């Protein structure tokens, strides 16, 4: 579809396996997909399908794999500065206050104190946490911690944001609020977002392209285009629900559900 130059992420024939007790366990097998620049993409699949592994490959942190992975047209490296990764538990350092956690990436890059202050203040205001800047992560709620993680990533002005199950540990209301907030941030900045989720609803609400992965080892089951992401009230439309049903059927085949249910009554 899009020309090569407009792709932010291109993965071709990616296979990953890791060593466990001298046995090679495949995590991903022959995975291929691409993500156009400035779009969002959701990776969804059962637990243990290698979703997080895929994210680690894209971030450059995992180096032993085979295949081809291009980020912004260049082979992936861990030192790509415009890639930001937000891990499941947000990766906040317990010994740094919110302000210092958000400033960490800038610290590492050796930015001046004034520049740092301006940037941190801007992103903390964006996620509504400037008032909380003097708190430690342990003094924040789950949602606030997640927003701090997002702010830390945004402070680096990334063009590729990788998120591993960003909202999975939050309550339903906070989750919806943060999903909307993420969309707003994306619509404003138009960076590329790749997020891993196990929630079908989240994948449809946030992913313009949804990549369905099968269980161990992870393989691409299907790729679904979802162009209405970001439209007001999308969650309430019939199309949204139709897509939910469609994805559920693909990810959870009917017969498995029945046999599982029958098993419970025996």
């Amino acid at each position: 579809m899009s020309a090569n130059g407009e792709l932010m992420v291109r993965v071709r024939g990616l296979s990953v396996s890791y060593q466990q007790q001298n046995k090679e366990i495949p995590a991903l097998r022959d995975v291929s997909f691409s993500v156009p620049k400035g779009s969002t993409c959701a990776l969804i699949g059962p637990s243990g399908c290698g979703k997080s592994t895929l994210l680690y490959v894209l971030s450059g942190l995992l180096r032993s794999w085979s295949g081809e992975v291009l980020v912004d047209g260049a082979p992936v490296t861990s030192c790509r500065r415009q890639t930001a990764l937000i891990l499941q538990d947000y990766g906040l350092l317990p010994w740094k206050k919110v302000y210092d956690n958000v400033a960490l990436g800038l610290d590492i890059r050796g930015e001046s104190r004034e520049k740092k202050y301006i940037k941190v203040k801007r992103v903390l205001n964006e996620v509504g946490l400037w008032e909380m800047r003097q708190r430690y992560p342990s003094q924040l709620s789950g949602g606030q911690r997640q927003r701090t993680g997002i702010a830390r990533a945004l402070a680096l002005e990334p063009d590729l944001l990788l998120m591993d199950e960003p909202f999975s540990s939050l309550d339903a209301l906070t989750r919806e609020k943060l999903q909307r907030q993420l969309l707003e941030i994306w619509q404003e900045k138009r960076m590329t977002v790749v997020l891993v989720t196990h929630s079908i609803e989240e994948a449809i609400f946030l992913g313009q392209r949804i990549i369905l992965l099968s269980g161990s080892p992870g393989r691409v089951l299907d790729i679904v285009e979802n162009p209405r992401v970001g439209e007001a009230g999308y969650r309430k439309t019939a199309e949204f629900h139709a897509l939910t049903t469609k994805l559920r059927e693909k990810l959870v085949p009917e017969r498995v559900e029945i046999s599982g249910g029958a098993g419970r009554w025996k």
Partner: protein
Amino acid sequence: MEMNGRKWASALYVTFSVTFLLLGWELLSLAVNNPALPGPLPALTAFFRELAGGLWGHFLVSSYRVVISLVISLVLAVPCGMVMGREEKVDRLVAPLIYIIYPVPKIVFLPVLMVLLGIQDASKITLITLVVFFQILVPIRDAARGINPDLVNSVKSLGARRRDIYLHVVWPAVLPEVLTSLRIASGTAIAVLFFSETISSQEGLGYYLLDAWSRAVYTEMFAGIIAMSLLGFIIYTVLEHLERWACPWKYV
């Protein structure tokens, strides 16, 4: 208001436990009824009298030896522990050596150290350092190894190099363990100090204590015991406050 109340309660508890200790001591000395175990009153009287005499000097010498030993151990053990905990290759090389030396009672090297370094401070400080070094090294190494890999990875993803990981993740992660292990090691350090000061020594609390014992002046011997306990107590308290000051995130 509430803060004040808590301070009062804490003062009350301290008073209570000190009274309990002194009372127990008094009862024990009455029960034993032997000049070798004087009651708290004669012992404390001797302590304050002796403090004005030579005891203060011995106290300072011993404090100096212990504190210097703790500082040297810390400076050596913390970087070693952090590197061993984080760099698998280094650990594989050094760990067997550590495990062979760790269980050896280092105290037996005192004669060797005295021959090599003389009977002054150097041999004593080296002996204490030898003991304390391992007591700090091993917990630091384990703490550094146990750091959540996601924490390291998320900082790496911000573009951190090895130096940044040590500075922003490993060092603060092991800091509470540094202070805790130091607090525990301070007790051992004083025990080793006592031992080293009792052998061909002319100053220090160990010498003072042994000298009083050989002269059978038991109240003075107990003045030395009180001084030694005080030394341990001061170091312990300082380290505890240091932890509160250095690791504020643990107390929020």
